[in-house]
C-alpha cells in the first residue's frame, strides 16, 4: 500500500513537469502584455514599460524564462505578481482561507444533501419522495448560479434586508458576533453553490444506488432477515459509493479553483477571482502558480480516490 502510494507519487513528477512546460509555453505564446494598463495611460512614457519588461525578464527567450521559473519554484520561490508586485505565495495564502471556508463548505453541504436524498430516492424509486426530489434536482442544475445568486440577493438582501450581499474578509467584529456575521455573509454563497452541486450529485447517487439495489446479493441479504437499514447502509451504499467517490474526488480540486461566477456576484476574495483577474491582466506568475497548484491537486485527489476504492471494496488490490 505504502509502496503503491510512493510509486504513484513518483510517476506524478514527470507529469507535473510536462504540465508546467505546456502551461508556460501556452501562456508565453498567448498575445497580451501585463503592462497593457501602462500602455493605455498616456502619461506614462513607453520607456517605463520597456524598462519594466526588461527588469521582469519578459524580453528573454521562452526556454530561458521557463528554466528560471522552474529553478526558483524548486527553491520554493513562487515569483511575484507583475501587476501588484507582491509575492505570489502571499497573494494565494491571503485567499486560500476564504476559498476553503466558502467553496469547501458548499461542497460539504452538497454532499450532506445529495447522499441521503439520493439514497432515499433510489430505495423507493418513483415514489412521491423520489419524484419531488428528482424534479427539484432538475430545477437545481438547470438554474445557473449567477441566476440563483442574484435571485437570493434580491430576496434576502434587497427585499427582506436580512443578509448582507457583499462578502467581507475583514470583519471588524470579534467573538461570537464575528461568527454570527461570518455565518450571515456566507450562507447565501454557500447555499447557492451547494444546492447547485447537490442537485447533480443527487442524481448520480440515485442511479448508482439503483444499479446496486437490484443485484442478487441484496436480495440475499434481505432474505436472510437483515433489517432494511442494515441492508441499505452496509450492503448497498458501500458498493454504490465507488462511482460517487470518483466523481467527488475529481471535484475537490475545483474547491481550490474557486467558483468564479459566484465569487464575482458576492465579491468573495477567493482563488477564482484571483485567477480571473490574473488572466485578464496577463499576470503570468500568478496564472502559473494557481494553475500549477491546481494540477498538483488533481493528481493528489486522483490518488486519494484510488486509495478510497480499496477501503470501500477490499477486492481491489494495489500492486
Amino acid at each position, binding site marked *: 500500500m505504502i509502496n503503491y502510494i510512493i510509486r504513484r507519487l513518483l510517476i506524478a513528477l514527470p507529469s507535473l513537469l510536462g504540465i508546467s512546460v505546456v502551461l508556460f509555453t501556452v501562456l508565453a505564446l498567448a498575445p497580451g502584455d501585463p503592462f497593457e494598463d501602462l*500602455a*493605455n495611460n498616456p502619461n*506614462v512614457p513607453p520607456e*517605463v514599460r520597456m524598462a*519594466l519588461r526588461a527588469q521582469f525578464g519578459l524580453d528573454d527567450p521562452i526556454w530561458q524564462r521557463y528554466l528560471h521559473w522552474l529553478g526558483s519554484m524548486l527553491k520554493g520561490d513562487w515569483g511575484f*505578481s507583475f501587476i*501588484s*508586485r507582491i509575492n505570489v505565495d502571499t497573494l494565494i495564502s491571503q485567499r486560500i482561507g476564504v476559498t476553503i471556508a466558502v467553496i469547501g463548505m458548499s461542497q460539504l453541504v452538497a454532499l450532506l444533501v445529495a447522499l441521503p436524498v439520493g439514497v432515499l430516492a433510489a430505495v423507493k424509486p418513483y415514489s412521491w419522495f423520489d419524484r419531488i426530489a428528482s424534479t427539484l434536482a432538475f430545477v437545481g442544475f438547470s438554474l445557473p448560479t449567477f441566476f440563483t445568486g442574484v435571485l437570493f440577493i434580491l430576496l434576502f438582501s434587497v427585499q427582506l434586508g436580512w443578509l448582507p*450581499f457583499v462578502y467581507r474578509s475583514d470583519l*471588524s467584529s470579534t467573538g461570537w458576533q464575528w461568527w454570527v456575521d461570518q455565518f450571515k455573509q456566507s450562507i447565501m454563497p454557500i447555499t447557492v453553490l451547494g444546492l447547485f452541486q447537490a442537485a447533480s450529485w443527487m442524481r448520480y447517487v440515485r442511479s448508482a444506488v439503483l444499479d446496486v439495489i437490484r443485484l442478487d446479493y441484496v436480495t440475499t441479504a434481505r432474505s436472510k432477515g437483515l433489517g432494511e437499514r442494515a441492508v441499505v447502509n452496509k450492503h448497498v451504499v458501500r458498493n454504490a459509493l465507488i462511482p460517487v467517490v470518483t466523481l467527488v474526488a475529481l471535484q475537490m480540486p475545483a474547491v481550490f479553483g474557486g467558483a468564479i461566477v459566484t465569487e464575482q456576484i458576492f465579491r468573495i476574495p477567493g482563488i477564482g477571482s484571483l485567477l480571473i483577474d490574473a488572466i485578464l491582466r496577463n499576470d503570468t506568475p500568478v496564472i502559473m502558480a494557481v494553475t500549477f497548484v491546481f494540477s498538483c491537486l488533481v493528481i493528489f485527489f486522483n490518488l486519494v480516490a484510488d486509495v478510497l476504492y480499496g477501503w470501500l471494496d477490499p477486492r481491489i488490490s494495489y500492486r
Partner: protein
Amino acid sequence: MDKHERHIRQLIDEVRDGQLPRRGFIAQMVGLGLTAPMAGMLLMHAGVANAQATIPYKGTKRGGGGTLKLIYWQAAVHLNPHFAGGTKDQDASRIFYEPLAGWDSDGNLVPALAAEIPSKENGGVGADGKTVTWKLKKGVTWHDGKPFTADDVVFTAQYAGDPATSTVTVATYKDIKVEKVDSHTVKVTYPKPTPFWAEALTGIVGCILPKHVFEVFMGAKSREAAANTKPVGTGPYKIVDFKPGDSLVAEANMAYHVPNQPFFDRLEVKGGGDALSAARAVLQTTEYDVAWNLAVEDELLKRLEAAGKGRMEFYAGSDIEFVSLNVTDPWKEVDGERASAKSKHPAFTDKAVREAMSLLIDRKNIGEQVYGRGAVVTSNFLNNPPRYRSPNTKYEFSIDKANQVLEAGGWKKGADGIRAKDGVKLKFVFQTSVSGPRQKCQAIIKDACTKAGIDLELKSVVAAVFFGSDAANPDTYQKFWSDIQMFTTTMGSPDPQFFMEQFVTEQLSQKANKWSSRNLARWSNAEYDAAHKASQTEFDPVKRAALFVKMNDLVVNDKHIIPLFARPRPYGVVNKMKPVFSAWDNTTWALGYWTRDA
C-alpha cells in the same frame, strides 16, 4: 479671438479692483470655455492675490464618526501612488499619502502639505517662469511619528524621476530639479519656462513619500519595499490591513496635521464585483456609504434612488465621448500598412460628407434617452476647466440639412438608396466597444444615416480588445482600421496641454510606432501644431487659454472629430453622508473633510 482676450483681461482687472468676486470671475471664465483650475491660475498669474482656497469642514472633533465604507467595483492591488496606473490604485494610495496641494472642483489648488500656494505675489513663482518655491507646512508627522521635511519632497522627486524605479510618474519628474532651500522650503526648477508649473508635487503625481522608508528601495529594488502595501504616509487615515485585489481597512490618524480631522474612526474600502451591484449596495441596502464611478444606465440608477436611501452626485470633468471619422483609408494598404498616414479616406476627404455626418448625430436625444445625467451634450472637444471652453462652436441635428449638403456636394442616391460619387459609395464601418449605451447610440446614428443615404455597418469590439494595446490585434482603437469609431477619452490634469497633444502631427498612430501614440484619427493640421507648440511656452495665461480655444475650434470645425458628450463622474452617496469630491483630483483627495450628519 482678440475680443475674447480683451474681455478676459478686463475681468481680471475687475477682480483686482475688487469689483468682481473671485468666484464670479471663475464662473464667467467657465462660461467662456475655460476650466476652473485654469481660471484660477489665470488670476494667480495676473498677480491677483489668490484668496487661499479652502474646503468647508463641519467636524468639531477628531474621530467619533464611526466607520466610513467605500465600495469600488475594481480593487486596488498596491498602495504606492507612484506605481498606481489605474484610478482604483490611485484613489487607494491617496488615502494615505498627500501631495503638496490638491485640485478642488473649481480648479483651485488647495494646500495639503504646503503652507501656502506659490504665486507671483508671494514670490513663489519666479519671474522667468522657470522656478517655483514651495513653503511646506510645519509640524506634520508621518504615520510612524517621524517629522515631514523638505528632504522627503526632494527624495520623492528623485525616486519618481529615476527611470530604474519604473514609476508611472517618471515623465513629470525626470527633467525637473527639486532642491532643498531650508528644512521647510523647496525650489523646483524647470528646464524651460513652464506655464503650467503646478503639475509636479500636486495631485496624485505629487504624493510625497517618506525618505526614511523608501530610501533603500530606490531604483531597481523598488518592488521589494514593504511599504508598497503597508503605506507610511501623512494622510488622515493609517493602514490597518490591506488585501490586494480585495479590500483595505484603515483607522483614524490621531496625529493628523489638520485640526479636528479626520471625522471617522475607521475606513473600509471594498473592491471587486460590478457597477450595478455596487450601486445597489449604496442606494438600496446601504451596506456601503459611497460608491465609486457608477457607470450604470441612468434609468437603472433612478430606479435605485427611488428607494430614498441615497443619491447620485455627478462631477463634470473633461472626459469626452466623441466620434472620429478616419482621415486615412483603412481598407487599402500603402507600403504594407492599412490606414497609412500617406493615404486619404475616399469619402471623408470631402468636407461635405463630414458635415453631413455631424448633422446626422442626434446628440440631444441620445444624451437624454441613453445616458441621462451621465452625459452633458457638447460641441467642444475641450470642455473643462471652463476657461478653455470655446464659445465659438455649435451643433445641430437635421436630416434634411444633411441631405442638402450631400446633394450639393455631388453625392447622388443610387438605385439601392445609398449615395455615391465617382464610384465611391457612402458605406462605412462604424466601430466602438461593447457596452449597452454605445450600441444604442450606434443604432440611433445608423438610423439617421440611412435616411440620408449613408449606409453604416455597426461593429462592436469587446472592451478588453478594443482598448487593449495588443499590436497584433486588428480591432484596437489605436489601429482604427475602420471608417468611424466612437469612445471616451479622459483628461487627467486640469491643464489641457497634454490633453490637446492628441491631435498634433507628431502623435500620428501608425505602424512605425507600433500604434502606441495618441493621434488615432491621424488628423494633421499645421496651424494646430503651431498653436500647440506656442502653448508650451506661452506664459500669459490669457493668450494661452486663447490658444487652447483655437486648437479646439480647429479640430472641431474640421469635423473629422465630432464631440458628443462630456462625461461627468457619477458617485453614489447614502443620505446624510457628506463627501467632498473634485473632478480634477482623486475620489479620496480630501478624505479628511468628509463627514456624516447625525
